[in-house]
C-alpha cells in the first residue's frame, strides 16, 4: 500500500538492489566525461599558453579587477571577442588564450547586457571612464548601467594587496604597494579598465 506494485517492477539489472554498487557506478560514469573534457586537458596544457609575453597585473590593476568582481560587472559585460567578422569589427582583435592566461578567475562572462570590454582599454582615456562610471547616463542618456559614483568616495583597502600579489605570483615592489596610498576604488577600477586589451608586452 505504500508503493504501487506497478511502479516498482524494475528488474533488468541487479544494480538497482545494491545502493553502494549503484553509487560507485554512478561516480565512475560521472567521472568519465569530467576527466576527458575538463581535467585531462588541464594537465595536457593545451589551454595554458606560455606566460612569457604577458604583462602581469600591477597592484592597482589587480585591486581594480577585484572591485570589478565585487560589483559583479561580469553579470553584464563579457570579455570575450569571438573570431567572427562582426565581432572584431565592433570590438577589435579576437580573444586569445594569452589574454586571460594569468586570470584567476577568468572573466569571460555569459551575457552581454552592455558591450564587451576585452579591448576597452584601447578605446577611451581615463577621464572618459571617470565621467562614465560616475554617471553612465551623462554619456548615453538611455544607458541602463548603474551609476558608480560612490567608488570615488571610497579609499582603496590595501590591507590584503601584498597577500593577493603573493598568492597569484605576480611580481611587485615595495614602491608599487606604497603607490596605492591615497588611491580610491575609482582609481583602481579605471586602472584595470585601461589595461583591458593591453595584456601583452
Amino acid at each position, binding site marked *: 500500500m505504500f*508503493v504501487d506494485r506497478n511502479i*516498482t517492477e*524494475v528488474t533488468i539489472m541487479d544494480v538497482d538492489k545494491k545502493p553502494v554498487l549503484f553509487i560507485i557506478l554512478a561516480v565512475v560514469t560521472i567521472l568519465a566525461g569530467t576527466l576527458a573534457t575538463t581535467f585531462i586537458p588541464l594537465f595536457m596544457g593545451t589551454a595554458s599558453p606560455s606566460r612569457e609575453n604577458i604583462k602581469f597585473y600591477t597592484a592597482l590593476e589587480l585591486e581594480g579587477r577585484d572591485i570589478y568582481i*565585487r*560589483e559583479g560587472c561580469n*553579470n553584464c559585460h563579457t570579455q570575450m571577442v569571438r573570431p567572427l567578422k562582426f565581432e572584431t569589427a*565592433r570590438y577589435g582583435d579576437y580573444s586569445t*588564450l594569452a589574454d586571460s592566461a594569468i*586570470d584567476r578567475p577568468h572573466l569571460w562572462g555569459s551575457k552581454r547586457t552592455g558591450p564587451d570590454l576585452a579591448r576597452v582599454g584601447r578605446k577611451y582615456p581615463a577621464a572618459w571612464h571617470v565621467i562614465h562610471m560616475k554617471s553612465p547616463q551623462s554619456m548615453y542618456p538611455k*544607458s541602463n548601467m548603474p551609476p558608480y559614483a560612490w567608488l570615488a568616495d571610497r579609499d582603496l583597502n590595501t590591507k590584503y594587496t601584498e597577500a593577493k600579489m603573493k598568492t597569484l605570483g605576480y611580481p611587485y615592489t615595495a614602491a608599487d604597494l606604497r603607490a596605492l596610498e591615497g588611491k580610491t576604488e575609482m582609481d583602481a577600477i579605471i586602472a584595470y579598465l585601461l589595461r583591458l586589451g593591453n595584456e601583452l608586452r
Partner: protein
Amino acid sequence: MAQEHAYDYRAVKGFAISSLFWGIVGLLIGILISLQLVYPQLNVTSWLTYGRLRPLHTNALIFGFTIPAAFSIFFYLVQRLGRTQLAFPGLAKALLYLFNTAIVLAALSLFAGMSQSKEYSELEWPLDLVIVVIWVMFAIIIIGTIVKRKEEQMYVSLWYILATVVGVAIVFIGNNLVVPVSLFKSYSVYAGANDANVQWWFGHNAVAFVFTTIPLAIFYYILPKTTQAPLYSHRLSIIGFWSLVFAYLWTGAHHLIYTPLPDWIQTVAISFSIFLIAPSWASVINGYGTMKGQWEQMRTSYLVKFIILGITFYGLQTLQGPSQAIRAFSALTHFTDWVPGHVHMGTMGWVTMTISAGFYYMLPRIYNTELYSVKIANAHFWLVLMGQLIYSVTMWITGIRQGAMWQAMEADGSLVYSNFIDTLTPNYAFWNMRTAGGIIFFAGFLLFVYNLYKTIRLAPKASSA
C-alpha cells in the same frame, strides 16, 4: 493510513516551508533586477546594484528554493519508496537549522559583494565549506535511509536521488577549489581558459544535477502515483538514466563556443549536447506513454496538468539546448537575451512546475488532509504558465533581434549599428513585458503558497505534530 505514523516527516515539513520562503525572496529579487535593466535609477545603493543582485537571484532560487525542495521531497520519497523511517532524524533537524543559517549568511555576503564571480559558484570559500558540510549531512541521511530500506528494489526516483547526491558533490567541489587570501576573498586555483572550462563543466552540470535529476526524481514518482497508471517503460528509464548521467558531463564547453578553448573540446561538447536529446526524451516519452488512455486526466486533475506541462517544457528545453550548442546558432544567440529565455523556460516551466506538483502531492498526504482549494491550484497553474510563456517568448524575440543587429554589416564591411546602445534600447520594451510576465508568475506562486498554508492550517491537529 494505519502505518502513517511510522514515517518521520518533521524535516520534510521544515524544508518545504524553507523552500517556499526563499522562493518568494528569490522571485521578488528577479522582478527587481528585471526592472533595474530598464530603470537604472533603481540601483539605489551599492548593495542593491544589479551586479550584486543578479547572483542573489540565481543563488536564492538554486540554493534557497530548489535545493530545500529537493531535501523535503527526497526525505519523503526515500521513506515511502524504501518503506522505512528516515535515518538519523536528529541530523535532519540539525541540517534544517544549519541550512537556513547558511542561506541567510549567503544572502548577506552577496549583498556585500563577496563573490568568487563564477556563475552559481559566487559564494566565497567559508560558505562553500558550510555547503559541503550540509551536503555531507544530506548524503548521510539519504544513503542511510536507502541502505536500511525494506523494499529491495530501488525505484527510478531513487536512482535520480542518488545521482543528485553524488553529482552535485563532484561538480561543486571541482569548481570551488580556491586559494584564500582572507576570510572574504579567494582566487581560483585554475587560470584563464582552464578556469572557464571547469566553470562551465560545473555550470552545465548544475543544470544536470539540480535542474534535471531533482525534478526527474519527483516526476517519476508522482506521475504513476497520481494517474494510477503503470510507468510506460522501465527499460526506457534504465537506458535514459545511465546515458543521461554519462553524457551530461561532456557538454560544458557548449557555453564556450568560439572561445579560444581548444576546438576539439568544443566539438566534443557539441556532439554530446546533440546526443543528450535521446536520454532527455526517454523521460518525456515515458511521461506521454504513461498517459496513454489517460489523457482525460489533463482536464480532471490539476496535478496531472502540472506534471505533464512540466515534462513538456523539459522536452522543449532539451531540444532548444542542443540547438544552441551548434556553432551557427551560438554565433547568433550567445550573449543575448535568448539565453535567459531558454533558462526560464527550464526553471519557471519544468523545475518550478514539477516541484509545485511534488508539494501539492505530498503535503496534503503528510498532514492527513485534502488540498485546501483545487480552484486556487488551477488558478496557480494558469498564472505560472502564462507568466513563463511571456518571459520566454519575449526574450527569444528580443534575443534574436539583438543578435541580428550585432551581426548586421554593410557591403563595405562596416557595422550597420556601430553604437552598441542602439542595439540595447529596443530591449527595454521586451524587458518591461518580461517584468509583467514575472509579476504574473509571482502572483501564481503566491496563490500556491497560500493554498499550501491553508491546507496545513486546516489539517487535523493530531497528525501535524
